[in-house]
């Protein structure tokens, strides 16, 4: 119960208290002397009674005690003297002494009572104070000007579990969180020095060991000189607030993190979208396909992909994609077709498809194949067309190229035939020579018969007819050969391979004779006809047979040219041309089919290459192998197209 009192101004108090002592005793002495020597204790006794009553009982009981004392004194006790002289008047001693006692007792009574009242008031005040501090949720404390605490409200003990006596002075710091002790101490020291207001937050350890945050404010009480004489303060539990603050901070952090994450995600997504867009653009670029959208009502383009710009030779960055601009780029000859297609698609509310050329500013042309779908609104109105435009220039060009290539191939084959035939010219010349020489001889013979003195017309006629026969033979040879010279586009007809083989054997009979090559024919009879170009097949056989002849012509030993035909399987015929010549170079069995491969000094090297391409264009295969004994064999297959009728 210490510490809550406010000490009054010190010096005045001292003067007053000790002055009172001296004064009151002085007065008492003076009065006692007036009443004579020998002091009287009876009055003191009753006074004490009154004083006690007034102190403990209060004012009214004190007065009651006074009355009773008076009665007692008056009844039981005799005055010392009957009379006393007071300024010439005889006053009964009893009255005077009782009156005197009464006044004295009154004073005592009053003093005691008021003292008591004061005490009580103080106690009440203290109780009120106590009630207040204990009713407050805050923890209340008080400290002296030196900083040592001298009061802690009951809340302190309730909270910390520590008794007030163990908190006094500076020991209350032990109840704080270790991390907060030093900072608080520093702050407190600054405050009690008067340099700052005391406003701190620290953690106090609860009785269960956990810590709670408290906001502490201390108010200094100053004396009339302004010096701090006392501190009063409160600690408010802000744990919840702190927790809320922390939660808020955490939330804020979380939100910020979430926001950052979201930002990252959005960025990633945007990048992904951009990447996809780039892929789409790339795909369109690679496939030379652009996308477009066209509004029907406004007759205007609403979307053009980058590639679509390029189809018209426009720059996606700088040029506009208006319908008019695009239209101007369409080849003048194709504009009508284009318009017709557009109008039809609108009228019939159907798919749009058209081919046209675009003319670029540099003069080049692109072939464009454009297709589109109609798009309807919810109410069924035709809103727009959406579609793609494909650059088919390359395809067209490829087709043209293929045509050219086919023609070149035919030309090349012809050239090969011519060259081959060139090789045969010598033997051809010889072959034709025979009938021509015979014709000359027969004609001369005819003349001889006619030049006689007696012309023998019969003999002459015979000779002349022999001439005709000879010339006819010559013509046959020429016509047989001329067929091979004929340059034409590839023809397809039903061909009997055995016939062709026979023809070629006849054609080359001069060669085989010249080089003393015996020709063996092993043809399977009644083979089905194949679908092919007769001239080209003749060329293949010619080529193979000439190669075989060449392989044998300078060699020793037997010279045999064998030609076979047979049915390889249900779908193919197989022909073989074999010789007993020098054979194929090792490990190069397939290289011989390469262009420009030749072992002949004046060979073109194209023969086998062209033969293979002819066979393959018929759907067959051409290959070569060495014979086990001597020489090489060339085989080729041709498919029998069983679907076509003979």
């Amino acid at each position, binding site marked *: 119960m210490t510490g809550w009192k406010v000490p009054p101004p010190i010096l005045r108090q001292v003067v007053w208290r000790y002055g009172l002592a001296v004064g009151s005793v002085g007065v008492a002495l003076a009065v006692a002397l007036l009443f004579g020597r020998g002091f009287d204790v009876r009055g003191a006794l009753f006074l004490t009674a009154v004083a006690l009553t007034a102190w403990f009982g209060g004012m009214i009981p004190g007065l009651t005690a006074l009355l009773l004392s008076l009665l007692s004194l008056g009844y039981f006790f005799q005055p010392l003297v009957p009379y006393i002289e007071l300024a010439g008047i005889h006053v009964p001693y009893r009255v005077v002494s009782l009156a005197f006692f009464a006044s004295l007792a009154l004073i005592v009574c009053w003093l005691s009572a008021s003292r008591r009242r004061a005490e009580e008031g103080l106690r009440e005040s203290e109780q009120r104070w106590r009630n207040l501090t204990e009713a407050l949720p805050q923890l209340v404390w008080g400290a002296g000007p030196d900083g040592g605490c001298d009061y802690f409200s009951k809340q302190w003990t309730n909270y910390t579990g520590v008794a007030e006596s163990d908190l006094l002075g500076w020991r209350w710091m032990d109840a704080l969180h270790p991390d907060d002790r030093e900072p608080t101490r520093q702050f407190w020291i600054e405050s009690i020095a008067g340099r700052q207001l005391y406003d701190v937050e620290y953690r106090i350890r609860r009785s269960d060991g956990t810590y709670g945050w408290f906001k502490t404010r201390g108010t200094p009480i100053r004396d009339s000189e302004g010096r701090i004489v006392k501190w009063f303060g409160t600690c408010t539990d802000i744990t919840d607030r702190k927790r809320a603050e922390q939660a808020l901070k955490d939330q804020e952090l979380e939100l910020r993190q979430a926001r950052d994450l979201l930002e990252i995600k959005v960025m990633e997504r945007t990048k992904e979208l951009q990447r996809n867009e780039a892929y789409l653009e790339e795909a369109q670029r690679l496939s030379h396909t652009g996308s477009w959208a066209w509004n029907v009502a406004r007759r205007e383009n609403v979307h053009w992909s980058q590639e679509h710009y390029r189809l018209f030779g426009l720059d996606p960055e700088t040029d506009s994609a208006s319908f008019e601009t695009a239209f101007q780029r369409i080849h003048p000859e194709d504009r009508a077709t284009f318009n017709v297609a557009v109008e039809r698609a609108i009228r019939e509310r159907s798919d749009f498809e058209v081919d046209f050329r675009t003319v670029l500013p540099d003069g080049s042309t692109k072939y464009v194949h454009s297709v589109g779908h109609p798009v309807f609104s919810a109410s069924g109105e035709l809103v727009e067309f959406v579609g793609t435009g494909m650059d088919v220039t390359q395809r067209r060009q490829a087709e043209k190229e293929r045509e050219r290539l086919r023609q070149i191939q035919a030309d090349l084959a012809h050239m090969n035939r011519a060259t081959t035939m060139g090789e045969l010219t010598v033997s051809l010349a010889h072959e034709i020579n*025979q*009938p021509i020489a*015979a014709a000359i*001889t027969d004609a001369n013979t005819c003349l001889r018969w006619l030049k006689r003195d007696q012309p023998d017309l019969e003999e002459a006629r*015979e000779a002349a007819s022999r001439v005709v026969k000879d010339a006819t033979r010559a013509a046959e040879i020429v016509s047989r050969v001329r067929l091979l010279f004929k340059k034409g586009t590839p023809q397809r007809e039903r061909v009997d391979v055995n016939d062709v083989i026979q023809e070629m054997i006849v054609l080359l009979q001069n060669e085989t*004779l*010249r080089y*003393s090559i015996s020709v063996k024919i092993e043809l399977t009879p009644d083979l089905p006809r194949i679908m092919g170009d007769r001239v080209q097949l003749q060329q293949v056989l010619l080529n193979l047979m000439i190669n075989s002849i060449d392989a044998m012509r300078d060699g020793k030993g037997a010279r045999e040219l064998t030609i076979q035909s047979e049915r390889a399987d249900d779908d193919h015929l197989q022909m073989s041309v074999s010789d007993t010549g020098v054979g194929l170079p090792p490990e190069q069995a397939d290289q011989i089919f390469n262009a420009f491969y030749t072992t002949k000094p004046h060979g073109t090297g194209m023969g086998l290459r062209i033969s293979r391409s002819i066979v393959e264009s018929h759907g067959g295969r051409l290959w070569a192998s060495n014979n086990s004994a001597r020489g090489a064999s060339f085989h080729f297959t041709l498919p029998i197209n069983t679907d076509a009728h003979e």
Partner: protein
Amino acid sequence: MITKEKTKLVAIVDDDDLMRSALHGLLKSVGLPAQTFASSEEFLNSGRQHQTACLIADIRMPGMSGLELQAKLNADHCRIPTIFITAHGDEKMRMQALRAGAVEFMAKPFDDEALLESVRAALMS
């Protein structure tokens, strides 16, 4: 000189039928009997070589060539004056033929008078 009664036979050996008939016709027009053979083998097998006073032969033939025939006849000591007529002919062949005893070596087409000259010359010897 033993004069044997030799039939002045001219033998024609050529695989080309038109050539055979042309030569036969030509010789007939000058009154020279000729016999034709389609191949060297046919000629040899006929046995007529010994009666042949002159041989007109082609070089390139299936089977035995003209030069081979000449060699064979020489080997058999059957020397017949031979005139070669051929569509194929080069200098080497010509030399070879002449060295082997050929009377003449002609290319087709030939001059008929030249041929007849050579035949007459061959028959004289």
